[in-house]
């Protein structure tokens, strides 16, 4: 068998490539951003185009508490990332659980808001253009929160059963990246729906 050495001095140098988990998550976030952009554009375009009520200013209340919960969960998850990087599994578990709770509060808050809109204000997805766009965009975001919460919960269960160790920091950071994205999207949705659109 004839073989040829094609090694050069270069081969001695260390060969580092980006982490594939992170690259993949960035790709997913890119794709998701495009989806949200389209929904946001549709929302903005349709502001004020409903032919009949109720209008946003009549029924929408700014969900400040909710938003604070969700946004601060970005902070707690960041603290959790830090902890696991240092190998402090207990601290990690606490921050992680707090993140989960904050996310869950947000979700419940959205549920309460929708309940009020549907049963008190009679606004459903088919009532008017506002209803259609509102439930779509907030619902799309909420569905991402749900997916995030399921992932958080899974990790939480692994932590509780003692399966999470320092070497999983990388994967946890990838997951946290997603959670940061969901939070960032909320800032956009919040601005568009509750500030510009009201």
């Amino acid at each position, binding site marked *: *068998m*004839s*073989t*040829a*050495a*094609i*090694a*050069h001095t*270069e*081969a*001695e140098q260390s*060969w580092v*490539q*980006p*982490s*594939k988990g992170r*690259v*993949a998550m960035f*790709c*997913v976030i*890119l*794709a*998701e*951003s*495009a*989806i949200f*952009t*389209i*929904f946001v554009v*549709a929302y903005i*375009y*349709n502001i004020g*185009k*409903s*032919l009949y009520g109720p209008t946003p200013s009549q029924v929408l209340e700014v969900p400040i508490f909710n938003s604070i919960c969700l946004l601060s969960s970005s902070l707690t998850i960041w603290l959790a990332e830090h902890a696991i990087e240092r190998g402090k599994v207990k601290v990690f578990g606490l921050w992680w659980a707090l993140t989960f709770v904050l996310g869950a509060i947000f979700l419940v808050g959205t549920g309460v808001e929708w309940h009020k809109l549907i049963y008190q204000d009679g606004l459903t*997805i*088919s009532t*008017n*253009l506002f209803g*259609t*766009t509102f439930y*779509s965009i907030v619902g*799309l975001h909420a569905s991402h929160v749900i997916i995030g919460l399921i992932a958080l919960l899974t990790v939480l269960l692994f932590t509780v059963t003692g399966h999470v160790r320092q070497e999983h920091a990388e994967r946890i950071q990838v997951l946290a990246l997603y959670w940061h994205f969901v939070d960032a999207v909320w800032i956009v949705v919040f601005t568009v729906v509750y500030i510009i659109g009201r």
Partner: protein
Amino acid sequence: MADSTYPLPGSLETTPKRWSQAAVLEWLNSWVITVDHKKLGILYMLYSIFFLLVGGAEAIALRIQLFHPNLHIISPEVFNRLFTMHGTTMVFLVGMTYIFGFANYLIPLMIGARDMAFPRLNALSFWLTFFGGILLYYSFIGGGGLYGAGNAPDTMWWAYAPLTERAFSPGHAPDYWALSLIVTGFGTIGASVNVIATALCMRCKGMTLMRLPLLVWLNVVTSGLALITITPLTAAQVMLLIDRYFGGHFFDTQAGGSAVVWAHFFWIFGHPEVYVLVLPAFAIANEVIPVFSRKAIFGYPAMVSASVAIAFVSLGVWAHHMFTIGMSSAGNAFFVLSTELVGIPTGIKIFNWLATMWGGKIRFATPMLFCTAFVVQFLLAGLTGIMLSVAPWNWQLHSSYFVIAHFHYVLVGAIVFCIFGGIYYWYPKVTGRMLSEKLGKWHFWLFVSGFHVTFDTMHIPGLMGMPRSIYTYEANRGWGTLNMIVSIGGIIQAIAVLIFAVNLIWSYFKGKVAGNDPWDAWTLEWAIPSPPPVYNFATDPVVTSRRPLWDIKHPEDPDWKYE
């Protein structure tokens, strides 16, 4: 391993394993559960070719109905379904799958990896795409719907609202269209993520980004573009389904919704989509043309940056499909400019191919024949694209057969030609046997002649005022003879494609044994046996230039000296 080595081409002859050795069921099962990038690549390709035949048969049915004015061979309803299904099939089930066929099979081999970054995601993506296609075609059976109306989708592949709203399309036709494309769309996203992660994170030692084979580069750009291109369509389709199932009003013009918004969303997807389709075709040409010209690709950095530029610019040109929709004159002018700007990076590519061939020793084997024809045809297609981008002229040409001719010139004349070229080029690697050159020549010459008879002629009825999507036309319009010629050309193409199908099967059993490196090529995949072993590379390769095999074959004048 400091001194990595790998065998020279032609040294490691293993006889290809035949499937008959295994029990058929086990064999089939191995294809269903596989997570091997090579097998998935082959599945993607078979899927793509299968739907090319289906979509092609639909096209022939269209052409038979248009053979003569006032024919009634196919009813208007069926005709509308056929061209919708033809367009949807060709774009989503042929165009979007051949990309990942080549990408899956070749990228790990070219970058010296053992598999894709996420093998299981890879399998999932394929099967999502697979079921999406089945779902689309199931509409022929299941699309009847509650109201007895509707059937297969029949609203063009643009599916312009409000025609797709419940009020105008009862039944389930648009639902099948939207749902099946959402499913294949998820498949595409998964596959794209995989391609990018593989190309960025799985490269063998020494394979820096500027040494990636151009095929890999272009597939990375394609995948990145696909990620932000497919998703707007998914979003718009979700809105459509919200309208249809939950009584939403996104595109309900009676309740203040907008028809124009759908058009924008569709083309925000639709325009970049055509570059998603064509970039992997360029990728194939980028590999084939240098090898058969016996020269390195001319201006590698320019090729890479031109591809990236095309991808970027293509995000801002979508409304050139909407010049007639009533935009402001400033808006129209903007999209004229952005559209014509795409011509510049594309021109760079054409010129680089030309320069690669210039001064070479061009060997016209079948792959090269297809790729040469591609360059000529793409040039002409691009120029008719420039004509269409001239907004006032577009007001005349839009939705006429001139547009149909323009885009078949690209979709068939560029993409299908490159697919064929690529298959002739890599078939020996995949199967271990050469495709018959004799049948290949027949296939090529019949296909180019059929192609030109059909699509050259098709421009003229467009200029003479013939709109698209019509199932028949008046006898006194003077379009009759031309349409007859177009239809005849379609049948010539069909014969050529049949020869190709025969060649694929015949050569698999009887073709000349290929050996590792039948084309005397330069990228890593040719260094290993054909077909490659499951693990691809016995030892991890190390490369020092863009053409590792050239360096081995020409130790006196290796490439890395010039990079």
